[in-house]
């Protein structure tokens, strides 16, 4: 069912994700649900892309297609120039879920080394990488703790560390801060920006929050439901240096306004 990649467009080394007329239809008892309909999108290396839209617009589904957790029913998609399945076999990406999904019987260290164990890294390499990523998310003193001993924000940081541990260039984040309160969320957003700049990774970030999307992204993909499709792609004009105060600037509000307009155009505010 999955046609070979590339298609008509030529593959550029700078393009990490390339979707071409990508569609996904779920067959349900109430008839087909068009989760994704003819989505065209290119994501370049080093970009921070946010997907925003109401529930059912297919933003999570798109992320899951990239991760090979769902198979598309039409169109093509390539990840690092490969099919999503090949990319997954090469462990090309790290995935962060809304729930931290840490294994409760493993310490934070052990949780972070879990993907490394599975991928067959040596013990010394595991320890080295665990220490490095723990430092990256500022949890160095908490490696020996169990997940329940950490706050929700710290747990989510640990799950980001886990996704970073095996050095995939692509980070897929599905509403990672959705369940956290606003104060923690602000702090983590700031940290995430720093982390992104330090590691130069490509990040795909699904969110419900307009300020979060505008604050974090270099590119904002506005989506709308029934069928799930892209209504607007906004390249952020904000500078790379982003203190939290930037959210009160005119530039920021202008982009936020355009996102809101895009959502309205997609009938997202109906019902």
């Amino acid at each position: 069912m999955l046609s070979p990649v590339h298609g008509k467009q030529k593959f550029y080394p700078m393009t990490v994700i390339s979707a071409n007329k990508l569609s996904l239809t779920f067959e349900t008892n109430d008839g087909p649900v068009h989760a994704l309909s003819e989505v065209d999108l290119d994501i370049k290396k080093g970009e921070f892309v946010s997907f925003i839209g109401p529930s059912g617009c297919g933003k999570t589904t798109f992320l899951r297609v990239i991760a090979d957790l769902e198979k598309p029913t039409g169109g093509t998609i390539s990840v690092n120039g490969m099919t999503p399945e090949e990319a997954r076999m090469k462990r090309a990406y790290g995935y962060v879920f809304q729930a931290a999904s840490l294994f409760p019987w493993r310490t934070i260290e052990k949780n972070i080394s879990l993907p490394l164990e599975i991928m067959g890294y040596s013990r010394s390499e595991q320890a080295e990488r665990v220490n490095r990523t723990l430092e990256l998310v500022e949890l160095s003193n908490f490696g020996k703790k169990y997940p329940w001993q950490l706050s929700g924000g710290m747990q989510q940081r640990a799950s980001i560390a886990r996704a970073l541990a095996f050095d995939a260039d692509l980070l897929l984040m599905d509403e990672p801060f959705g369940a956290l309160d606003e104060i923690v969320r602000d702090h983590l957003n700031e940290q995430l920006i720093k982390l992104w700049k330090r590691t130069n990774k490509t990040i795909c970030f699904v969110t419900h929050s307009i300020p979060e999307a505008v604050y974090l992204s270099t590119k904002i993909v506005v989506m709308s439901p029934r069928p799930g499709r892209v209504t607007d792609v906004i390249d952020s004009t904000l500078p790379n240096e982003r203190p939290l105060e930037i959210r009160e600037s005119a530039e920021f509000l202008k982009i936020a306004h355009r996102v809101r307009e895009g959502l309205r155009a997609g009938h997202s505010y109906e019902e």
Partner: protein
Amino acid sequence: MLNSLSATGLLIDILGALLIALVVLNTASKSILRNSAAHMGYNYDHSISQITQRNDTILGICLIIVGFSLQFLEALGYVANFFSKTIFISTIVISASYFFLRHALAAYQINVLIPKHGSPKKPLGYPIVEQVFFSNGLRSNSGKTIPVLTVIAVIVAIWYACVVWMNAPFEYDKAERAKTDPPNFSQLISNTMAQERPVLPAAHQVFAEIWDTTVNKKITSKRSLIYHSWITLSATLLGFIIGTVLGILLAVGIVHNRAMDRSVMPWVIASQTIPILAVAPMIIVTLNAVGLTGLIPKALISTYLSFFPVVVGMVKGLRSPDNSQLDLLHTWYASKPQIFWKLRWPSSMPFLFTSLKVAVAISLVGAIVGELPTGAVAGLGARLLAGSYYGQTIQIWSALFMAAALAAVLVMIVGFAHSYVLKRMGQKVEIY
């Protein structure tokens, strides 16, 4: 064996019962106390009255236990009358002085200390006597101690009432046949508790029998209850181990193979709808025909019962990881064995141990049932059977109590293993 009911023991029992009745009355009076304290403008510190009530209950239960143990010891002939009287008098003196001192001090606290210091946020401290007697030992788990002891005390009381009631007809019959006067009440009580083949044996008779057949007999003796328990226990453990392994293997198959899920699971459930009493003789006889006797057939009946909770629990346990955990492993391109050992197996541990607790108890039932149909010569089941053939009710009851104790110990061992494993897995556990 028991000549007369220990009068002193009985008196101490009654004293304990009276004390508990007093506590019940006291609970009713508590609200009055609180109201009057509030009327006087003080915040009545209910913790004091709770403590006093709790300790009165403990005292009452202790008295009942002392009374029963006296009866028990006297029944065995270990206690001279003089000794028993000494214990009786000292018990009365100690509890009376404790009672008096404690209430005096509590009254002092309520009437003097609280008005002086105002209404305290914390209790003012326990009365001195209680600090000496019940400093921390009973307080830390008193939440369980009292209910458990109370239930035991109530059960024992009902038991003894039933002993008199159920064994009385025999005494009346006996008197009629001997053409003597029917026994008066106190004679009736002491006689009904000392019959050789009572309809319902008294607790102290049963425990005397257990004592006699465990401590006083060599382990190798055919009359030793320990010997019989070991015969049953060995079949139980073997059946439990086979059942656990079989249950886990079936569960792994069911979780990983759709065909097995569809085909095996209904049979697993159907297997338990057949009464074990119908299956057990067939297993024993069939295996006997192929030359298997003794331990193995009994163990297989245990297996038949014990694999079921393990299968059901483990299927649920192995399926308990949530989707995001499974998706994570999928994104890391983990192999099936990796998914099993890193996620499914650890996730299923709480389910496994909960099932094992049921399985180990039911294994014991299986082993005992396996001893019944063939007229086995050894084992707790054989003791039950022999006891019922010859009307040895005391023997039946002592075998029953031994089986219950065995089951309790086995379940507790599994429980300890449970908390140990979960603690090793870093989880907060509150099992016992």
